C-alpha cells in the first residue's frame, strides 16, 4: 500500500478546470518529484493534497485513510507537512516563534526542545537568528525557516513546493543536499519543482505534469534520459 495515493483528482477554480483527473502515488521512503511548466497545476495538486483546497472530484488516501474531505489543520496531526510556495513564514514573529508554531500539532514539551536541537543542527543559521523577526531574513534563510518549521511537526510525509524558487545557485545546491538529508532520515518527500534537472537528480520516481494532466511518469533516471523530457524540461 502506498503512503499517499491520489486517484482521479480534479480541482476547479470557478469554471476553470485546473486539475483534470490526476492519479499518482508516493511510497514510504521515496522522493517523488512532480515536474512541469508554470501553470501546469503543480501547486494546486499540493494544496489539494494537504487540504488547503477543496477537491472537485477524486480521492486522496494517506496511510490507508481517506483524507479527501479532511481540513488542512487536521491532516497535519496525521503526519503530513507542507512547505508552501513562497515560504510563507510568519514575518512579524521571531524565528523561534515560527519554529514553535511548526510544532503546534505536538503535545510533548520535552520533545519540543529535542526537535528544536535537531532543526538547529540541520540549519545552524536559524539558531544564530532565533530572536530575529522572520520578515528580516533573506529569501534563502526564510526557506530554511519554512523547512525547519515543517520538520517541527515530525512529518512522515513532507510536501515541498518550489523550494529552489528565487534562490542563488549555491543556495539551491545546499537546499537539495538538505532535502536528501531529510529523505535519508526517513521522511518521505513529495517535491514540486520547476528546476527539473535538480529535481530528477534526487528523486526516485517522477511525474510530468502538463496543463492539469500527468503525461509521463516513471523512474527518475529513465525520465532524465527521455528525449521529450530532455527537450521540454532539461534544455538539452
Amino acid at each position, binding site marked *: 500500500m502506498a503512503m499517499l495515493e491520489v486517484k482521479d483528482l480534479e480541482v476547479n477554480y470557478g469554471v476553470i478546470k485546473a486539475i483534470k483527473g490526476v492519479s499518482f502515488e508516493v511510497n514510504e521512503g521515496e522522493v517523488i518529484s512532480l515536474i512541469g511548466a508554470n501553470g501546469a497545476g503543480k501547486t494546486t495538486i499540493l494544496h489539494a493534497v494537504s487540504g488547503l483546497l477543496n477537491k472537485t472530484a477524486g480521492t486522496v488516501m494517506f496511510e490507508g485513510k481517506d483524507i479527501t474531505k479532511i481540513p488542512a489543520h487536521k491532516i497535519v496531526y496525521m503526519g503530513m507537512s507542507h512547505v508552501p510556495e513562497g515560504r510563507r513564514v510568519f514575518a512579524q*514573529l521571531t524565528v523561534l516563534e515560527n519554529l*514553535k508554531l511548526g510544532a*503546534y500539532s505536538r503535545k510533548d514539551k520535552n520533545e519540543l526542545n529535542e526537535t528544536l536541537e535537531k532543526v538547529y543542527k540541520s540549519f545552524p543559521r536559524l539558531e544564530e537568528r532565533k530572536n530575529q523577526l522572520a*520578515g528580516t531574513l*533573506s529569501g534563502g534563510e526564510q526557506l530554511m525557516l519554512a523547512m525547519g*518549521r515543517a520538520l517541527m511537526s515530525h512529518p512522515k510525509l513532507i510536501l515541498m513546493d518550489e523550494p529552489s524558487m528565487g534562490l542563488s545557485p549555491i543556495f539551491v545546491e545546499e537546499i537539495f543536499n538538505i532535502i536528501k538529508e531529510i529523505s535519508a532520515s526517513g521522511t518521505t518527500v513529495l517535491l514540486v519543482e520547476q528546476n527539473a534537472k535538480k529535481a530528477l537528480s534526487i528523486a526516485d520516481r517522477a511525474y510530468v505534469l502538463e496543463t492539469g494532466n500527468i503525461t509521463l511518469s516513471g523512474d527518475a533516471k529513465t525520465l532524465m534520459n527521455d528525449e521529450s523530457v530532455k527537450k521540454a524540461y532539461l534544455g538539452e
Partner: protein
Amino acid sequence: MSFLNYLINGISLGSVYAIIALGYTMVYGIAKMLNFAHGDVIMVGGFVVFTMSTRMGLSPVLSVLVSIVICTLLGMTIERIAYKPLRNATSLAVLITAIGVSYFLQNLALIIFGSDIKLFTSVVKVKPLVIADGQITITGETIVTILACMIIMTVLTLFIKKTKAGQAMLAVSEDKGAAELMGVNVNATISLTFAIGSGLAAIAGVLLCSAYPSLNPYTGSMPGIKAFVAAVFGGIGSIPGALIGGILLGVIESLSKSYISSQMADAIVFSVLIIVLLVKPTGLLGKKISEKV
C-alpha cells in the same frame, strides 16, 4: 489642580475606550473585518448588569460575571451566524452585515427594555480617593476603570506572547493558510477572538455605565465609534496601539470639554484623528513590514 482632575478623568474615559478598542483591533487583526456591532455588545453588557443587579438584586460581582459570560456567548454566536458564512465574501458585504447586526441588537434591546433612559446603579463600591487637601478627588469608578484597563492589557499581552492559543492568533492574523498548515484551527481561533473581544466589551459596558449612569439601547454606539477611532488612531491590529489610542482619545476629549467647549469636543477628537492619519496613515503604532522576496 483642576487640570490634574481633568487629566485623570480623561485617562479613565480613555481606559474604557482602550478596552473597547481591543475588541475592534483584535477582530480586525485576525478576521480582517470591522465588527461594527461591537459597540452594541457593550450596551447588552450594561443591560445584563442592570437587570441582574438593579432589578433582581444580585451582587455586583456576580452580575458582572454573568454579563461577561452572556456577552462572550453573544459574540461567538454573532460570529457563527452572521460572519462565518461570509468568510470568503467581499469585505463590503461583511461590513454591511455588521451594521445590520448592530441595528438588530439595538432594536432587540428597544423591544425588551423600551426606549426610556434607565438609571444605572454603579457596581463599584470603592471609596473615592481625596488627595492634595481635597483639591483632587479620584472617584472609585476612576480607580477601578484604570486598574481594570491595566490588568486587561497585561493579561492579554502575556496571553498572546506566551500561550499556544495566543501564538496561533498571531499566525492566523498574518497568514490563515500557513497557520492552517501548522495545525491551527482557523475557525476556532476566530471564534476565540470574538469571545475575548465581547467579554471585554461586557467589562467596558459595566465600567462605562458605572461612570456615566444612564442606559438606553443606543448607549453603546457612540463609545463604540470613539473606540473604533481609538483603534485606528493607535494603529488598527495593534494591541498596545489600542491602549495608547484609547488613552490619548480620552484625554483629548476630556481636556477639550473642559477648556475649549463641550459641544466641540467630539469635533476636536475626530480632527485629531484626521491629522494623525494624514501624517501617519497606519496609525501611531501601525506597522508596515516590508517583506523581502
